[in-house]
């Protein structure tokens, strides 16, 4: 291929890419006018270029992105995600340990103080016995109240309805806070 011809082809290529200045384009067109064969070649190139430029991209079928994500989520966790999760767990444990150490020290200090002082030990034991007595009394009165209520069925029905409504409200609140991704959501999947 002659050097002139190669240069002409390069110029045509640059013209198609819009890289030629107006003056260079004028020179190219003048050069093309010298040969009918080159004019035909240029026209064919220009037509091909125009056809490619004006053909829009094609889109995938509906739901393609969702299918891709489902496939990705079903894959084993990649290395970077495992590292990231491991790092998060390690940081969490570190924070928990930092918080637990002073609390454990305080508990240990109180425990040692109490068992080394007989008066304090007796006082603590008395407080524990008093608390146990109070809880036992509370349970006894609750049982008595329940026995009294079984006599009044309308009141019992209302109480049960109120308890169920409260339970439903709690479930709804928990699901809303966790974004519906709790244990219930997971179990409902096939």
């Amino acid at each position, binding site marked *: 291929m002659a050097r002139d011809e190669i240069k002409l082809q390069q110029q045509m290529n640059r013209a198609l890419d819009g890289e030629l200045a107006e003056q260079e384009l004028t020179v190219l067109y003048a050069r093309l006018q010298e040969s009918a064969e080159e004019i035909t070649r240029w026209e*064919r190139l220009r037509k*091909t270029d125009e056809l490619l430029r004006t053909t*829009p991209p*094609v*889109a*995938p079928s509906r739901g393609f992105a969702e299918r891709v994500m489902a496939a*990705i989520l079903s*894959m084993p966790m990649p290395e970077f995600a495992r590292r*990231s999760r491991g790092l998060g767990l390690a940081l969490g444990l570190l924070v928990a340990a930092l918080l637990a150490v002073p609390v454990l020290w305080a508990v240990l200090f109180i425990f040692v103080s109490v068992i080394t002082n007989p008066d304090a030990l007796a006082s603590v034991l008395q407080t524990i016995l008093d608390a146990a007595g109070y809880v036992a009394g509370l349970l006894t009165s609750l049982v008595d109240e329940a026995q009294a209520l079984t006599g009044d069925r309308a009141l019992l029905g209302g109480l049960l309805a109120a308890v169920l409504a409260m339970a439903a409200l709690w479930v709804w609140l928990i699901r809303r806070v966790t974004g519906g991704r709790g244990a219930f959501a997971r179990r409902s999947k096939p």
Partner: protein
Amino acid sequence: MSEDSDSLWVQRTLAGDPQAFGELVRRYERDVFNLAYRMLNERGEAEDAAQEAFMRAYVNLDRYDPERPFKTWLLSITSNHCIDRLRRRRLTWLSLEEPLPPHPALTSDTPGPEEALLTSERNLLVQEMLADLSPEYRLAVILRYWYDLSYAEIAEMLGTTESAIKSRLFRARQALADYLESRPVSTLDPVLENS
């Protein structure tokens, strides 16, 4: 759509939120699919290849260099995967001595409202022309015309020089023009008249 925003979604994915990658999939599904379809010339295989490209991008996300545009990196993965598929396809054909696949217009997986564009005469003609090129030339044409990438960007993606891409593209254009010229007169000619 900004590259900063892409980086943000990449960072979120790397931090352990796989759903963040979904945003990138939605953003680039059309680009990735179009590249796979133009390369492979078969819709079903193009969807498989595009999905595989996204999966490879996800698994290797920690190797992505945030200094480069995410889109270019993704297209690079897609083009490599498509070239691999074309090589495997060629080996399969050679080993099984099967006939060439039917023309895209004759395959049955193209109907549907979304595929009206795909089945348009212009698209069929373009696919027919691209199928006549070698995969390397076809890739250069696709990246230049549908993704508006510079020669330098294409060269970087394909691991070659800018002058090699210029030469490849010019030869591809000439081959396409020759193919167009050699086609018999048909009902597709109004498409050319309008272009």
